[in-house]
């Protein structure tokens, strides 16, 4: 196993900032949705050429979040030449910057990159953050995302989500013979890699908690079953040896179990498999469709969908299968529930006729609201901080699909960059 990525984040009180209040007022509240993104100046970091590249990725990350408005570097009056010097705050205030990020990239004698950066509160005239990272040169994008995460966290008080990856289904060809391939990319769409060749259909990939393993459904040999894909080794393995279809896998929060659906004589029920012993436990037993399980972040409950009440609705049960109760009572059919990593909300797909929307509700079913209305949005996945969702969007008439992200508030809806048509996104946890 290669350990080529070695990162050190030194929480820096590296240099004392000029005598200003310890905690400046520069902050963004992510819970309300932000109509006025925070103006922030991010000059190219010192050090060619990666300094400019890294700053460019940081600007793009923060802009994409909808919470920040990176200012055009053409308007910068002060040319940063020494990141250890205190900036001329007045010149940054003059262009309305509230935050300023300065940084530099240097090559270590051992060949690694060293990236230093500081986040400044322009109005408070104080340093909010100073960090340094070391990495191999080919990992410069990850360092940029980590810088973005650090800035996002310092200003919003929430963990960032830029140093993450998306596993998804890449689609090509006509709807009647669509080719579906397992693919993975960085959260910003960079570095897309196809993991399967498209000679068999794959669906519904999901990450394990360390982002090293993907559970998904594959039609290899025309037998639809749940498989595990080890990203490190490229090995794929059928999970269990079931006589019938297994589908809709989802890892437990500790990564030791996979909840999935097993079909027997046409009836679908939810089971949990222990990955170490491969023992399975059956959680639902009724003759209705029970599928799409998703664990609560404490691992004690599972939300799922069932049509036992006549239509497709969302239910919650304890992880041993006890206490099954319906929580969705809204219009239409409700399915594909996914528990937020924060535990506070469950995202789901609402279908009324042929209109599909993403919604969220509390785990007791209260506070339900829809956050997309584009016509066909299906299958939500949460950013690890529980503030942003992605989902797949179908164009009418089988004309392709795309992935979109939206804040949990319903604002800042954006198309996610993918190589061609794409569906079934799953967001990784923060990469360790």
């Amino acid at each position, binding site marked *: *196993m290669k350990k080529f990525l070695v990162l050190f984040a030194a929480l820096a009180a590296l240099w004392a900032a000029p005598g200003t209040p310890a905690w400046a007022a520069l902050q963004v509240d992510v819970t309300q949705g932000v109509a006025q993104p925070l103006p922030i100046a991010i000059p190219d970091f010192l050090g060619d050429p990666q300094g400019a590249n890294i700053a460019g990725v940081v600007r793009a990350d923060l802009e994409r979040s909808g919470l920040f408005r990176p200012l055009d570097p053409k308007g910068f009056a002060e040319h940063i030449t020494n990141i250890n010097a205190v900036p001329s705050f007045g010149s940054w205030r003059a262009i309305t910057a509230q935050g300023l990020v300065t940084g530099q990239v240097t090559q270590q004698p051992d060949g690694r990159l060293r990236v230093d950066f500081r986040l400044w509160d322009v109005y408070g005239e104080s340093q909010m953050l100073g960090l340094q990272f070391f990495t191999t040169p080919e990992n410069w994008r990850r360092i940029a995302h980590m810088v973005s995460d650090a800035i996002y966290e310092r200003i919003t008080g929430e963990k960032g989500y830029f140093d993450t990856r998306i596993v998804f289904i890449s689609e090509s060809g006509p709807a*009647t013979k669509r080719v579906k391939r397992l693919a993975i990319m960085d959260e910003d769409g960079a570095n897309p890699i196809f*993991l*399967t060749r498209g000679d068999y259909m794959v669906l519904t990939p999901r990450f394990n908690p360390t982002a090293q393993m993907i559970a998904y459904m594959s039609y290899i040999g*025309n037998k639809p079953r749940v498989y595990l894909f080890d990203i490190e080794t490229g090995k794929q393995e059928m999970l269990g040896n079931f006589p019938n279809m297994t*589908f809709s896998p989802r890892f437990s929060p500790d990564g030791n179990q996979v909840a999935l659906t097993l079909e027997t004589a*046409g009836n679908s029920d939810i089971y949990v498999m222990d990955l170490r012993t491969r023992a399975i436990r059956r959680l639902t037993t009724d003759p209705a*469709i029970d599928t799409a399980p998703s664990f609560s972040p404490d691992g004690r409950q599972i939300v799922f969908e069932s049509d036992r009440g006549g239509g497709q609705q969302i239910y919650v049960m304890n992880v041993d299968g006890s206490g099954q109760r319906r929580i969705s009572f809204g219009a239409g059919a409700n399915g594909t529930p996914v528990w937020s990593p924060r535990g506070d909300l469950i995202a789901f797909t609402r279908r009324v006729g042929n209109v599909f929307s993403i919604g969220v509700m509390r785990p007791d079913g209260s506070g339900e609201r829809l956050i997309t209305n584009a016509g066909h949005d299906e299958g939500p996945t949460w950013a690890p901080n529980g503030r942003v969702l992605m989902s797949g969007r179908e164009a009418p008439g089988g004309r392709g699909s795309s992935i979109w992200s939206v804040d949990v508030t319903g604002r800042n809806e954006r198309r996610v960059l993918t190589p061609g048509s794409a569906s079934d996104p799953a967001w990784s946890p923060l990469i360790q």
Partner: protein
Amino acid sequence: MTSISRTLKFACLSAALILGACTHKQEAVNTVPPPAPPPPVPAAPAPVTSKILPGSAEDFRVNVGDTVHFGYNEYSIQDTDKSVLGRQAAWLAKYPAVRVTVEGHCDERGTREYNLALGARRANAVKEYLVAQGVSTGRVETVSYGKERPICTESNEGCWAQNRRGVTTITGGANS
């Protein structure tokens, strides 16, 4: 600290995994041509007409019928489809070496996982009907494609009705 990586080794993936393709072809198949009128005098060379081999997959598709349809979110066999399933069972009785897989399909009005489950119900309903007609259960497998393999892609009832289907495909033992 492990890395997830730019160095995915996926060359070893799937090379050995061959998809057992048994896709149901929807293109026009060679049908029995209508009886030709008596040719006027010196006939041009007769066009080559393909003969359907009895006991072949084509025989099953064309002369028996491989598809039944379902109501919206339904999986019970409709009365109008019982004759085609009766013919399927009779044909399978005549050709006892043939093995089949019943595909269950759905229209687009359902989430992905739900439709996989619904397609399984439909495939199983066809299988149970065939088994009740005397086909041995070991000859009939099922597979659900959910909404992943539509044959019609418009968003209207005409297309949806075509897509809600069970298709009996021959996977082995047919004449060829």
